[in-house]
């Protein structure tokens, strides 16, 4: 499985339609404080099914919807789509390319799609289970988390292992 692109619209500070294309190797994301780099990490977790608002740094799930600036109005919903190369069939879907879309409205109502088919959140989580990528996996290390790890109790560290084993 390879990550091909992430399309974002209305998620946190990404008001306008934004496309991030990924290739092999190391992609470095840079920019000043507060410009939106960690919001890209958040949108990735969110598409993969993250339900913990706290781990997305918010107080409620609607906190991830672009809520306006002094010159722009808030949006009514946030949406993001992840496009994956699935030639190795690591995802249990018989297609070379798989798209996962998630949307949340101001009402709190959420929508989920796999290849444009409406599905439940549960289906998205199951899709990524056992692929090494997913909300509880060690493949996303958030800002500040690396410092927390070694100072955490030996019981908390175990969670990293449970993901891998």
């Amino acid at each position, binding site marked *: *499985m*390879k*990550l091909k692109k992430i399309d974002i619209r209305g998620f946190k*500070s*990404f*008001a*306008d339609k*934004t496309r*991030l294309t*990924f*290739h*092999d*190797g*190391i*992609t*470095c*994301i*840079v*920019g*000043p404080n507060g*410009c*939106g*780099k*960690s919001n*890209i*990490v958040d949108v*990735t977790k969110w598409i993969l099914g993250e339900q913990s608002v706290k781990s997305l740094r918010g107080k409620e799930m609607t906190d991830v919807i672009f809520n*306006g*600036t*002094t*010159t*722009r109005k808030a949006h009514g919903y946030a949406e993001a789509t992840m496009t994956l190369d699935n030639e190795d069939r*690591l995802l249990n879907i018989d297609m070379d390319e798989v798209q996962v879309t998630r949307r949340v409205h101001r009402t709190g109502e959420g929508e989920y799609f796999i290849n444009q088919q409406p599905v439940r959140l549960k289906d998205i989580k199951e899709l990524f289970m056992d*692929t*090494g*990528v997913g909300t509880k*996996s*060690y*493949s*996303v*290390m*958030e*800002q*500040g*988390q*690396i*410092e927390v*790890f*070694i100072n955490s*109790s*030996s*019981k*908390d*560290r*175990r969670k*990293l*292992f449970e*993901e*891998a*084993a």
Partner: protein
Amino acid sequence: SRELFVKTFEEIRSSFQEMFRRLFGGGRADIVLQEGVDVLEAGIEIFAKPPGKENRSISLLSGGEKVMTTISLLFAVFKTKPSPFCILDEIDAALDEANVDRFMAVLQEFLSFTQFIIISHNRRTMTMSDEIYGVTMEEKGVSKVLTMSLDTVSA
């Protein structure tokens, strides 16, 4: 199941010992399951001795040494169970230049299996990346992404 967990744990443990030596240029480290507790419940103890230093509690390690030890463990997990992609948000914040170099050098060997997305303020990390995306807020509060080359970044 217990056997699967112990088998995976032993693999990660052996990779961790090797990764630590490579990232620290020597020294010794180990991870051990808490004794006297069921393997499926036991906590994980970490021991780390950087080169030339004596064994002592890992709480006494420096900020950067703690990060390098955690990276050694993360890499050990990747060796056993690689992810297709991995996102690291400013994990080099506490590292000096020599450690950023060592970290990025070891990262190379995971590139055949894994795409890495690294968020960083660090120039060395940027120079060692294959592609750079710059995020800006020309319009206050609205993020915009630009593809950047290394020359634009060093400006």
